[in-house]
């Protein structure tokens, strides 16, 4: 399978002439691919066939929660009435506002939070809102200077990057022997400079932070806020809520927990929930009930916008439909089956899983093997491999999250792939994959000699 670039098949350079504008306001020409509709369709159809998606097979990427994306949610998102301009009057888009308001309520009760904004267009954007809200809150209430955010070593990379983007110094927190927050280290890290502790629970090893109440108390005693990274919320649905654990701010990854498609990297949505004290700082505009209808408003001390409008609407409406479909029972069952699946899969593979008891995901160690090579080799067995080499606390980590949608049969197939690779030698692993569209791709060449457009390829 190989498909040329469109521009390699058919291109046209068009001069700008007979323009309604004077020449000095226009460009000279434009050279772009120029396929017929049949050729365009074939091109992208072929490209699609060179992509592995959830509909192709298991996709056990740890921390990514690759669930099945129900087809009907696509249908509701493409209803003509769903497609309105963001500058419409509130009166004329009561339907849109109602979906948003009801989704906010869903997320509030699911997370145990008092108020939710849907504006952040992704998880990292949600983190940013959380950090900005924390900053605004401290600025508003504190005299003191709080310029540090504490983050466990094993946390998602976005936590660090977000804290830095928010202007904070990052204080990195080591894990204890069991893979959880080290309370002594936390004690040492906390100070009057602490703005927040960002935590994922269960953490990236799949472990529940059992001392969460103590942690919350410690952070609060130091005057800091406790931030919940929602990447792993699927483990807890219906069984525990961040709000009940003492978290002050959290984000939800609706493209993980609420089954909206990942779309090859996005769009997602990263709504943020907060306790009532923080609600006045949320981004504007927010949606609320008013007089039997819905309206937009600006919270009193709003941090302003973090997106040009209201975020990724098409993703939000799918998440609303998903939650409305599965309801309490479905949500609670999701976490049960997600945790069962992770435990079952771990029990069937020969790689060592050093930390537990884990929930929706586990981190195995490839031991003497290179985890990245293991992943490449798993591709040859027709399955998608886990996330690799992270968290670093586990050597040659294979971070695995099957989610609730996989059957025992599929998990057995995945385990067979793990176990087949576990038996194989370095030579085979290093030359893997062999049965994929492309063979192992040279990353060094790509980075050393960046060719980022067809123009760059043609200059070669």
């Amino acid at each position, binding site marked *: 399978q*190989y498909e040329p670039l469109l521009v390699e098949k058919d291109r046209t350079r068009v001069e700008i002439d007979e323009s309604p504008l004077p020449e000095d306001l226009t460009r000279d020409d434009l050279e772009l691919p120029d396929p017929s509709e049949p050729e365009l369709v074939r091109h992208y159809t072929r490209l699609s066939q060179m992509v592995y998606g959830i509909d192709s097979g298991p996709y056990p990427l740890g921390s990514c929660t690759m669930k099945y994306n129900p087809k009907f949610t696509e249908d509701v998102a493409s209803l003509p009435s769903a497609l309105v301009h963001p500058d419409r009057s509130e009166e004329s*888009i009561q339907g849109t506002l109602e979906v948003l308001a009801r989704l906010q309520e869903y997320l509030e009760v699911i997370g145990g939070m008092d108020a939710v904004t849907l504006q952040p267009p992704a998880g990292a954007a949600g983190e940013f809102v959380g950090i900005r809200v924390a900053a605004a809150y401290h600025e508003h209430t504190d005299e003191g200077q709080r310029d540090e955010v504490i983050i466990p070593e094993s946390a998602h990379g976005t936590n660090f*990057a977000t804290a830095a983007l928010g202007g904070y110094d990052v204080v990195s927190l080591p894990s204890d022997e069991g893979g959880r927050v080290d309370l002594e280290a936390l004690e040492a890290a906390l100070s009057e400079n602490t703005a927040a502790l960002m935590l994922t629970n269960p953490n990236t090893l799949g472990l529940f932070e059992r001392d969460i109440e103590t942690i919350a108390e410690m952070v609060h005693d130091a005057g800091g806020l406790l931030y919940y990274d929602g990447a792993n919320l699927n483990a807890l649905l219906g069984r*525990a809520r961040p709000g009940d654990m003492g978290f002050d701010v959290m984000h939800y990854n609706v493209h993980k927990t609420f089954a909206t498609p990942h779309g090859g990297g996005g769009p997602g949505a990263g709504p943020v929930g907060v306790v009532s004290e923080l609600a006045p700082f949320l981004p504007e505009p927010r949606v609320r009930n008013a007089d039997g209808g819905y309206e937009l408003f600006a919270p009193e001390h709003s941090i302003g916008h973090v997106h040009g409008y209201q975020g990724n609407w098409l993703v939000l409406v799918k998440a609303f439909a998903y939650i409305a479909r599965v309801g309490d029972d479905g949500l609670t069952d999701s976490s049960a089956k997600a945790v069962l699946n992770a435990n079952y899969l771990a029990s069937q593979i020969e790689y060592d899983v050093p930390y537990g008891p884990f929930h929706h995901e586990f981190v195995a160690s490839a031991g003497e093997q290179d985890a990245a090579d293991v992943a490449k080799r798993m591709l040859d067995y027709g399955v998608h491999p886990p996330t690799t080499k992270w968290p670093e606390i586990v050597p040659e980590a294979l971070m695995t999250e099957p989610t609730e949608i996989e059957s025992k049969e599929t998990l057995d197939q995945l385990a067979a792939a793990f176990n087949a690779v576990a038996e194989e030698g370095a030579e085979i692993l290093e030359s893997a994959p062999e049965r994929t569209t492309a063979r192992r791709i040279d990353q060094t060449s790509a980075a050393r000699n960046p060719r980022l457009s067809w123009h760059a390829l043609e200059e070669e």
Partner: protein
Amino acid sequence: MNGLHATGSPYAPHTDETLTAMLEAVGADTVEDLFDIPEAVQYDGEFGIDARTERETRQLVRTILQRNADLTELLGRGQYGYYVPSVVDHLSNRSEFLTSYTQYQPEVSQGFLQALFEYQSLLVELTGLSIANCSMYDAASALGEAATLAKRVRTTSGHRVLIPELLSEGRRSTLENYVEGTDLTVETYATADGNVDLEALEEAVDETAIMIYAENPTIRGTIEEHLAEIGAVAADADALFVLGTDPIALSLLQKPADVGADVVVGDASVLGLPASYGMGLGLFATRESYLRQVPGRLVGASEDATDRRAFTLTLQTREQHIRRERATSNICTNQAWVALRTAIHAAALGPDGMIELAKRGVTRAESLAADVDALVGVKAPVHDRRHFREFVAHVDQPAKAIADDLERQGFAVHVVGEHELQFCVAGVTDDELDAFVETLEEVL
């Protein structure tokens, strides 16, 4: 399997039989035993969310959304509801595209990587700059990222980011949030008759300015006439010239590289997405020299083990999952699928079609302006400039009242001043524009 009477998740495949086998394999009596949650923080309440059948859920959402009025939207100001050809839906909804993750295993993601590479190439051609990333969230966040790029690449002691006083609230405010964690400050400069006030800008610029932002077309639909001069002012001050625009405008208007733009931002989803309540696609292109400081993902060409061309995410050491707090951005999930749609829409139009669409943005806006200008009580356009896609009209009566009347008659327009309305032709058919002029005349 779930038939009509499922309990639990309708998407979890477990039967009683497999459940039992799996529990046995893990040595647990019940699934609950697998949870390691201290009792004190266990949740035993109910969300109160009823499960529904698929049909009921579709009906629910449809019923709610039907509360939206069915209006012809003459709306723009940064978001445009162009007609999106049917192929865009059909191809982008191919489930391999839609349900895949970020391309961290390129060997099984070549198709999406190539599509993103083609998207990047489209922007390189449109902007004349050599680097385009494969998406940011939207125009506003791309603008914010441009400011942090300016901070990284400008070693001067500068801290001032200059933006036009005429700018959408969403973009200005998002930019301010992005720079809140830095020592940068955002300041506005004056505009003159809808364009940049060059003199005011020159006065505002000194060695403390590290970035000048301008838009073409502007939020009021005027075509900016002084791009090259703005570029020169920026270059003289060693400030980054960041230009806000979009792919349809770029098909006809001046090429950013030709006027000295260092960064181009904007909403690329004018191609690819219908009006989606503000959901967008952040366009981000810049010069090759800033390559190592670019935020967001980049797809590059490489070779596989058989020396065949292959594509991969590259220069990932800039990104948060590798570099953590020293990353060029915190972005992880982006808008890849929208970028795919944009690439498809552009290819469906071809260069001819894109230029034609852009030209119609000029001619149809100017023709509508002439039509409404002919009405008693309307003067249009307000600005003595060339217009692209939209324009501001002065109305003698209160603008809000007219807009309300128009809405009752089925048309949505912008109120941009006590006596100013803004009308946009993008995505509106000729028949609808005719009906609009007629209706406007009636409600005046």
